C-alpha cells in the first residue's frame, strides 16, 4: 500500500471536515452546552461564533499558517472578554472541537488502523498548535485590557484641581506605589506650568501609609515644585506617615505642613494674598 505524503493526508482530512461541517459543528455546540461553557453568551451567539471558529480552525489546518487564526482569536477575545468569558472556557471549547473532530476521524478510518495513525500524525500537531494559538491570543488580549484599565485608574485617581487663581489642589487617595508617585509628580509639575500655580496643596488624608521610597518621592515633588516657583503645602499627614518622614530624616522644617485640607487651603489663600470671610463682614 502506498503511503501518502503528509500534505496529502492533511488535504484529505480538511476535505472530510468541510464535507461534514454542519454535523460536526452542531455536535460541537451541543457538547459546549453539555459541559456548561460560555454561559455568558446566548445560544445564537455561541452558534454564530462557533461557525467562525470552525471555519478558521479548518482553514488553519489547511494552510498550515496561524496568523489569520491568531488575529481572529484576538478579535474574538476583544468581543467576549467584556461579556465575562473566562480563559478556561475558551481553552475548553477549543479542546472540545479538537475532540469532536478527532472522534469523527476515528469513525471514518476505523477500518484502516495504519491510515488512521497517519492521519492522526498529520492532524495532532496542527490541532495542538491551533489550541495553543487561540489560548495565547485570548490571554494576550486579557492582559492588554488589564493594562489599559490600570492606566485609566491611575489617570483618574490623581486629578490636579485648580480651586482659585494660582492655587492647585492635589488630593491623593489610596495606595501609592513608586510608579503612581512618579506619575503624580509629572502630572503636578505639568499642572503647575499650565495653570501658573504659585501654591499647591497636596492632601494625603486618604493615604494610609507610605514606605520610605514613596515618602522620598513626596519630598522630591515638593522640591521640584519649588524649582517651578510654586510653594507646596502638605496636609492630612497621618501619625504613621509623620513617623515615616521623621525616620527617613526629612527636614520637616523645610516642608510646609498643615493639619487638614481646610487649614491648608486657608494658608494657601493667605500666601496668595486672599482674605476670605462671610459676606456680612464685607459690608
Amino acid at each position, binding site marked *: 500500500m502506498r503511503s501518502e505524503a503528509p500534505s496529502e493526508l492533511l488535504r484529505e482530512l480538511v476535505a472530510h471536515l468541510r464535507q461534514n461541517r454542519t454535523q460536526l459543528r452542531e455536535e460541537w455546540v451541543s457538547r459546549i452546552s453539555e459541559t456548561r461553557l460560555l454561559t455568558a453568551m446566548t445560544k445564537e451567539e455561541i452558534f454564530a461564533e462557533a461557525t467562525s471558529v470552525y471555519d478558521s480552525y479548518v482553514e488553519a489546518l489547511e494552510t498550515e499558517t496561524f496568523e489569520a487564526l491568531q488575529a481572529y482569536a484576538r478579535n474574538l477575545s476583544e468581543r467576549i472578554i467584556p461579556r465575562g468569558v473566562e480563559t478556561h472556557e475558551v481553552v475548553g471549547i477549543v479542546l472540545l472541537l479538537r475532540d469532536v473532530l478527532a472522534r469523527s476521524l476515528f469513525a471514518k478510518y476505523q477500518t484502516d488502523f495504519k491510515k488512521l495513525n497517519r492521519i492522526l500524525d498529520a492532524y495532532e500537531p496542527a490541532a495542538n498548535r491551533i489550541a495553543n494559538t487561540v489560548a495565547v491570543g485570548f490571554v494576550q488580549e486579557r492582559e492588554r485590557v488589564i493594562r489599559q484599565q490600570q492606566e485609566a485608574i491611575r489617570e483618574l485617581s490623581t486629578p490636579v484641581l485648580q480651586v482659585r487663581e494660582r492655587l492647585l489642589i492635589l488630593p491623593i487617595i489610596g495606595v501609592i506605589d513608586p510608579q503612581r508617585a512618579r506619575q503624580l509628580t509629572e502630572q503636578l509639575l505639568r499642572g503647575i506650568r499650565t495653570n501658573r500655580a504659585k501654591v499647591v496643596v497636596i492632601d494625603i488624608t486618604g493615604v494610609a501609609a507610605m514606605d520610605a521610597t514613596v515618602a522620598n518621592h513626596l519630598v522630591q515633588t515638593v522640591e521640584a515644585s519649588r*524649582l517651578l*516657583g510654586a510653594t507646596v503645602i502638605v496636609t492630612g499627614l497621618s501619625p504613621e506617615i509623620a513617623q515615616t518622614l521623621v525616620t527617613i530624616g526629612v527636614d520637616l522644617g523645610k516642608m510646609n505642613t498643615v493639619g487638614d485640607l481646610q487649614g491648608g487651603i486657608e494658608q494657601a489663600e493667605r500666601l496668595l494674598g486672599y482674605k476670605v470671610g462671610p459676606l456680612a463682614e464685607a459690608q
Partner: protein
Amino acid sequence: MEVPILKQGQVLIATFQAALSDADLKHLRIGLVEQVVKFRSRGVIVDVTAMDVMDSFASRTLREIAQMIRLRGAETVIVGIQPEVAFAMVQLGLKLEGVATALDLEEGLEYLHEKFKETN
C-alpha cells in the same frame, strides 16, 4: 557661546541657550557680576527655559552666581526650569538651595519688584 544679557530698568536678564559648555558657564559667572556692578542693578533673572538638561556643574554655577550677586546687594531669580528638568534635578539631589526660583520671566520680574519694595 555668548549669553545675551538684557537690561530692563534695575533688572538684568540673562537668557541661557540650549547647550552651554562649562566654559560658557564660567564666563557667565564673571560676566554677570561685572554687569551688575556696571549698571548698579538690583536684580538678575537667569532664564533657563531653553535648557533641557541641568547637570551638577550648571546647578552649582547658578548657586555661585546667586551668591556672588547677593554680595553686590542684588537678588537673583532662576526662571523657566522645565517640568522634566526639575524632576531630573531633584532626583539627582540638585535642589538649587538658597536660590529663588519662579515659573517664568513675568513671575520672576514680579518677584523682584516685590523684593525691591521690601528693601526700599
